[in-house]
């Protein structure tokens, strides 16, 4: 028997690709936008400190490989985005808006049908003196799609003609020659040393945002071959083309970056040395930030409030911006849910309407935003910011029920009766599976249990699994009703949040998110693929979102992520891209 569960990463999938800063409108009242984009020190008339060196906390255990095609963790992107230069660089402009700045590509042309992208590379060099050519990008695109490598982000070439055919090949049955042929057939061509042409299968406006991701930055096949098995782990076998070069690496501990003197924009890079170091204990990070030994800190949990209210001193600026992440519950739709009730849309809706999202974010986190939709704040569709234009679909329903226990229980009961279940509410037990290794997760579990039990009069059985692998096993075996997940967008487009429900998406593998349901959802994707115009896409996205959270209640979204950072006042010019590296310090500097 095949049991399926859908849903995604519990711990936030730190798989952000690239694209601009934390601009865009926002519903939360106390939001302060992050500082505007890179400004040259001279323009402000500030005095540079003699020592241009900073130190940052960095979860080193999540840095697995120096191979940018193989990367998948945020910590890897944090490094790669500073030591390599791709076609475009996600950053913020002086007003704080997210943009894709020309980087390796000086400029690019898009054909009128939106299918052909031609990138014109600037003259820039690897650290061993070799020029970065269009062929290095071709090699990178082909390499990431090679099914024998099984790279996590192989699907990033899926928009390109021949891309999906390449990365979905079965290595068991396909011969090496077949795979090589498929790689040749990938529609990425080096017209000459500085001209790269990419042909897409359908007009996919999100493609440009994908090439801003470090996975698609250039690679050198000769270097990879020379390094052999050391390519993943030994930085001395690598060459670089970004603003910094790696000069030191201690496994699971620290990384040293130094300025790359041959970088094409070296005159705007001021820091001479950046140390990324792993500091496990939050209180240690805090002590170091207070002593001026860390340039910035990401406060979490109980540390947010004191930092926001200035209890931790006044030598820092507090940055609060959007983050493309949504947290939600999903249901066991495999027909084998523990309670047997998850097939009823009314039951699912009642559970969705029974939780007080505002109170939850306030009480448990004291940050983040209550979510009544599935696409978070700040996510852009071309020039349009989706959440600014589209009201959250669940809001109206929620206000109609207004947390009235009687009405909610009636709705739940109605759903039960439709399924022919005549039990009393008090006899119903819902199994909620989750992991719980941190204080904050434990608090959440207790909050949800309490909330559903109070509102619906049912019993909630919290099954806390020891770690995420155990959790997946339990989920894949279908021993649950409802599970908790988080999804972070890999690129800056609403597509990153709706695609997961399609038959191309990742939800298909889990719970009862069957082929038929996915196929039903595919109609939205097909319409989107045929629609290059942002305004038109926005409408389709809005319909798709309505379907996910209201019509079908595929998920209960409850919270959008945000980003909170504190930056020492000594450091200026640091930016915080929306989906790229958490800190972009390539143009930062230390003031005297």
């Amino acid at each position, binding site marked *: 028997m095949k049991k399926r569960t859908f849903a995604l990463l519990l711990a936030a999938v730190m798989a952000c690709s690239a694209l601009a800063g934390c601009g865009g409108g926002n519903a939360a009242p106390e939001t302060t936008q992050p500082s505007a984009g890179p400004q040259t020190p001279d323009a402000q008339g500030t005095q540079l400190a003699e020592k241009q060196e900073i130190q940052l906390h960095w979860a080193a255990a999540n840095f697995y490989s120096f191979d940018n095609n193989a990367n998948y963790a945020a910590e890897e992107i944090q490094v790669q985005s500073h030591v390599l230069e791709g076609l475009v660089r996600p950053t913020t402009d002086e007003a704080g808006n997210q943009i894709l700045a020309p980087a390796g590509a000086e400029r690019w042309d898009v054909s009128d049908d939106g299918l052909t992208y031609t990138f014109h590379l600037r003259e820039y060099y690897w650290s061993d003196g070799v020029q970065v050519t269009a062929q290095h990008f071709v090699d990178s695109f082909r390499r990431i799609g090679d099914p024998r490598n099984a790279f996590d982000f192989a699907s990033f070439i899926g928009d390109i003609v021949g891309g999906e055919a390449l990365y979905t090949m079965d290595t068991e049955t396909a011969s090496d020659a077949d795979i090589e042929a498929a790689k040749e057939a990938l529609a990425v061509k080096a017209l000459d040393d500085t001209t790269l042409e990419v042909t897409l299968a359908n007009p996919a406006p999100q493609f440009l945002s994908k090439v801003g991701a470090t996975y698609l930055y250039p690679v050198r096949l000769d270097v990879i071959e020379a390094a052999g098995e050391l390519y993943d782990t030994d930085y001395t076998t690598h060459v670089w083309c970004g603003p910094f070069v790696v000069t030191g690496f201690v496994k699971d501990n620290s990384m040293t970056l130094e300025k790359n003197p041959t970088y094409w924009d070296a005159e705007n890079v001021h820091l001479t040395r950046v140390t990324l170091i792993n500091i496990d204990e939050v209180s240690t990070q805090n002590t170091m930030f207070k002593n001026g030994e860390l340039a910035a800190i990401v406060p979490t949990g109980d540390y947010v409030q004191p930092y926001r209210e200035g209890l931790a001193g006044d030598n820092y600026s507090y940055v609060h911006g959007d983050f493309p992440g949504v947290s939600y519950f999903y249901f066991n739709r495999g027909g084998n849910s523990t309670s047997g009730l998850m097939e009823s849309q009314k039951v699912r809706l009642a559970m969705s309407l029974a939780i007080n999202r505002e*109170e939850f974010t306030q009480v448990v986190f004291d940050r983040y935003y209550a979510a009544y939709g599935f696409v978070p704040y700040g996510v852009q569709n071309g020039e349009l910011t989706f959440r600014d234009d589209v009201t959250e679909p669940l809001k109206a329903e929620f206000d109609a029920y207004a947390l009235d226990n009687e009405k909610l229980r009636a709705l739940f009961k109605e759903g039960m009766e439709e399924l022919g279940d005549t039990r009393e509410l008090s006899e119903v037990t819902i199994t909620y599976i989750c992991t719980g290794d941190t204080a904050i997760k434990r608090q959440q579990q207790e909050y949800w249990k309490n909330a559903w039990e109070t509102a619906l009069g049912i019993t909630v059985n919290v099954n*806390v699994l020891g770690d995420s692998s155990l959790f997946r096993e339990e989920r894949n075996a279908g021993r649950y009703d409802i599970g908790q997940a988080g999804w972070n967008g890999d690129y800056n487009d609403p597509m990153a949040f709706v695609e997961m429900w399609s038959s191309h998406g990742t939800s298909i593998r889990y719970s009862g998110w069957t082929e038929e349901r996915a196929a039903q959802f595919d109609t939205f994707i097909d319409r989107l693929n045929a629609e290059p115009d942002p305004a038109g896409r926005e409408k389709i996205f809005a319909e798709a979102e309505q379907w996910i959270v209201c019509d079908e209640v595929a998920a209960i979204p409850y919270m959008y992520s945000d980003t909170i950072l504190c930056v020492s006042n000594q450091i200026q010019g640091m930016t915080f891209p929306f989906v790229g590296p958490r800190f972009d310090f390539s143009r930062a500097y230390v003031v005297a």
Partner: protein
Amino acid sequence: MEQAADNRFVIIGCADADKEAIARPTITYAQDAWRRLRKNPIAMASIVVLVLMVVLVIFGPLLCGWEYDYMQPTLKNLPPSAEHWFGTDMLGRDIFARVCVGGRVSLLIALVCTCVQVVVGCAYGGIMAYFGGWVDNIMMRVIEVMMSIPYLLVVIIVMMVLDNSVPSLLVALCVTSWCNTARAMRGVILQLKSSEYVMAAQSLGAPARRVILKHLIPNTIGILILNTATSIPNYIFQESTLGFLGIGLQPPNTSLGVMISLGQAAMEFYPLQLIFPAAALVLIVLAFNLLGDGLRDALDPKLRK
């Protein structure tokens, strides 16, 4: 015939007959140990502290009138007051009640584990020593294997295979801990088996039951008591270590280890949430350790004055 003058012997009565008797009351080993323990002020203080703690973890939640898992979201992170003696935590739960319940769980885990350890250890060690030969050899190898697998590895794996409930925590903590007890027991029993007084008893025709009851058990009880006294704080510590690693108990269960790991996350701005459970843990562990130290001195006949 001359009658011998019988004045060489005088009847002196039998008043002095009990001169050879032991004037002081005979005291058993246990009485002697208790007498010496009583003279040790640190050990006595530990006993008092322990009794107080036990009373507190049993009746504490009743005293303060709060449920340990009752959340008041609006009253979070409060400092101590007349209402909440130790203040409230990040979910607005009463810390005093939580410390009491957490202490109860920690103590309970330690006690149960110690019992299992002693029982299994004694049985295993006794069998090894009694049968000897190849049985002993194989059973020793088993112990060797168990002891050379890193302890934490075993514990984590057991917790993963089972779940995060109290019973599986007990299994995880006990699974290798009896090895040392078994080895110690084996050593003592082997030594006793070949000692002169056991041989004497056996040659005098004492049945096996009498040898075991009168000689083996009293002579091993000291080691067992010591084992118990040092194991309890160890278990409390191990449980808190698992709590730090996030593989211990899960909510709504709580224990001192879980509370400390939660409190440690908040220590910069709400240090009391760390200090109260940590102080309770330190007090209990300290008292058991000091009592164990006192017991060691008291039970060791060689240290008699």
